[in-house]
């Protein structure tokens, strides 16, 4: 996979006699996360690289084996912490699939709103960082404030910003208030202008195109061979999106497109992510319309055995008290079964493989983490690349250390 063939290897009469070893990371500003690459450099060109990961490994799969289902949600927050709500809801949907819980449509639509907002937040980070790493700090500062607006919406819905722990098994912990809806509408109104300007600054920018187009090309075959998913796979030309291929949370009712690239290079990945933000806006608009048609005030399914009742209920209502006690003390059994559920995370297919033996904790829970699987191609594909290209290649892969290491 020699990406840059016109830069020659060390030749016999080369004045430089040995390769330089460079430790890129574990804490390097250009890696945007805690992971290390030991690179062998011939001048500016990478001859070989070895990725070392695991610096923030927190043994989530082991911890999850000792926790009741509802206590696993905060663990999923810390996988891809740039789009925590998708992880939270992916986990809730896994448990709901295990328990065969049917959600009211309104809950599905509210989930779609939150998941698409977090997808936008995730893509904002990745795309502005590509701009930043190619030298365009303006775009980074400019669009980043909208991530802040998204976090304000999350704050309104669940009280937290980054590690959201949003929702419960069976729905949300509370209904969206009117301020939340106002903020979502305000975001829908303001964000398109900003995104359009962001695109104007970069899409046809000669310097940006020179830095990104044709760099780190990946063919569809290679991408599939390395089990890539998400925007990276779509940029390589494969239209695989979990939202379409296995719709969850009523995605089949929405009208949206799956953008695909052709060459899999950094420029295509950038364009695919940008277009996905537009599609997410479209989805949120549709979801808002659909929410308005649904009966108001429904924000969770009627599953008292698994849905934690509101605190006032617990103090004033015997059934709620009993269920609260049973849920918190882990007295309720889930069926013996195994289930795999995947959602389209910010970086690709985020899968939860849950084996339950009938107890109060999972027997085994495995996270299929897209960053972990996408990142393994980084070292092999860096061979022959310029160091500065490898850096923007890494940014365009949107590797989130939390998801990489679990």
């Amino acid at each position, binding site marked *: 996979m020699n990406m840059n063939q016109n830069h020659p290897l060390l030749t016999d009469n080369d004045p430089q006699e040995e390769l330089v070893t460079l430790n890129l990371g574990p804490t390097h500003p250009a890696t945007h996360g805690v992971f290390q690459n030991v690179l062998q450099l011939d001048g500016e060109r990478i001859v070989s690289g070895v990725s070392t990961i695991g610096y923030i490994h927190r043994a989530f*799969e082991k911890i999850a084996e*000792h926790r009741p289902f509802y206590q696993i949600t905060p663990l999923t927050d810390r996988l891809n912490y740039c789009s925590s709500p998708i992880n939270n809801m992916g986990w809730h949907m896994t448990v709901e699939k295990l328990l065969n819980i049917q959600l009211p449509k309104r809950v599905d639509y509210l989930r779609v709103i939150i998941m698409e907002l977090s997808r936008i937040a995730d893509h904002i980070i990745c795309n502005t960082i590509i701009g930043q790493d190619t030298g365009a700090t303006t775009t980074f500062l400019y669009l980043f404030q909208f991530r802040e607006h998204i976090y304000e919406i999350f704050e309104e819905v669940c009280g937290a910003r980054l590690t959201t722990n949003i929702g419960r098994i069976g729905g949300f912990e509370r209904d969206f208030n009117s301020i939340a809806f106002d903020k979502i509408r305000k975001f829908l109104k303001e964000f398109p202008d900003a995104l359009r300007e962001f695109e104007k600054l970069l899409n046809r920018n000669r310097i940006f195109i020179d830095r990104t187009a044709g760099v780190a090309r990946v063919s569809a075959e290679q991408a*599939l061979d390395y089990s890539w998913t998400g925007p990276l796979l779509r940029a390589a030309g494969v239209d695989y999106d979990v939202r379409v291929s296995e719709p969850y949370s009523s995605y089949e009712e929405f009208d949206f497109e799956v953008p695909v690239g052709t060459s899999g290079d950094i420029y295509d990945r950038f364009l695919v992510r940008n277009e996905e933000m537009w599609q997410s806006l479209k989805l949120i608009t549709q979801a808002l319309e659909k929410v308005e048609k649904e009966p108001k005030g429904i924000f969770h399914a009627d599953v008292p055995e698994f849905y934690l009742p509101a605190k006032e209920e617990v103090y004033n209502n015997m059934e709620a008290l009993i269920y609260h006690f049973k849920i918190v003390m882990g007295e309720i059994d889930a069926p013996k079964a195994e289930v795999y559920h995947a959602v389209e995370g910010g970086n690709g297919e985020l899968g939860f493989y849950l084996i339950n033996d009938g107890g109060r904790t999972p027997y085994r829970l495995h996270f299929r983490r897209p960053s972990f699987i996408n990142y393994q191609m980084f070292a*092999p594909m860096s061979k022959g690349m310029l160091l500065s290209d490898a850096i923007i290649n890494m940014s365009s892969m949107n590797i989130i250390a939390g998801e990489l290491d679990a």
Partner: protein
Amino acid sequence: MEETTVNHELLQKLSARFGERIISVTEPYGLLTFETGKDAVIDVLEFLKKDLGFTFLTDITAVHYPEKHALAVVYHLHNLVQRQRIRMKVFLSEDKPVIPSATLLWNGANWMERETYDFFGIRFEGHPDLRRILNMDELGVHPMLKQYPLEDPNRVDKKDEYFGR
């Protein structure tokens, strides 16, 4: 219902090719799941990939069953064109957890197998670089095996028996 027919056809093709080597077929939540022996792993995976269109390797992981003295390696494959998933399990004995590597078929299997080796000690024969990946090299144990407790085993506030189980 539709899913079941598709799975049934798939199973027939697999059984026609491998016969007795496809065992314990189940269908939890519509996902066709079967077991096979470790000698047949690569043959079955290759057949699934090249003849049945399961070109995409979603995941490799493992599960430890201490009562059975077994480790199960679990493969999730995906047919992106027909939008179908399949799950394959291979049970290995605890004493000799060795299985052929799937890196011959997918480069993406590399890190998935390294992770499985790291956490369960399963040796993937033919893997180009079977090292630990998330844990430190000096760890000495494979921490996802059930015999290693998460925290101090003397703590009693989290034991199931105290909750009437």
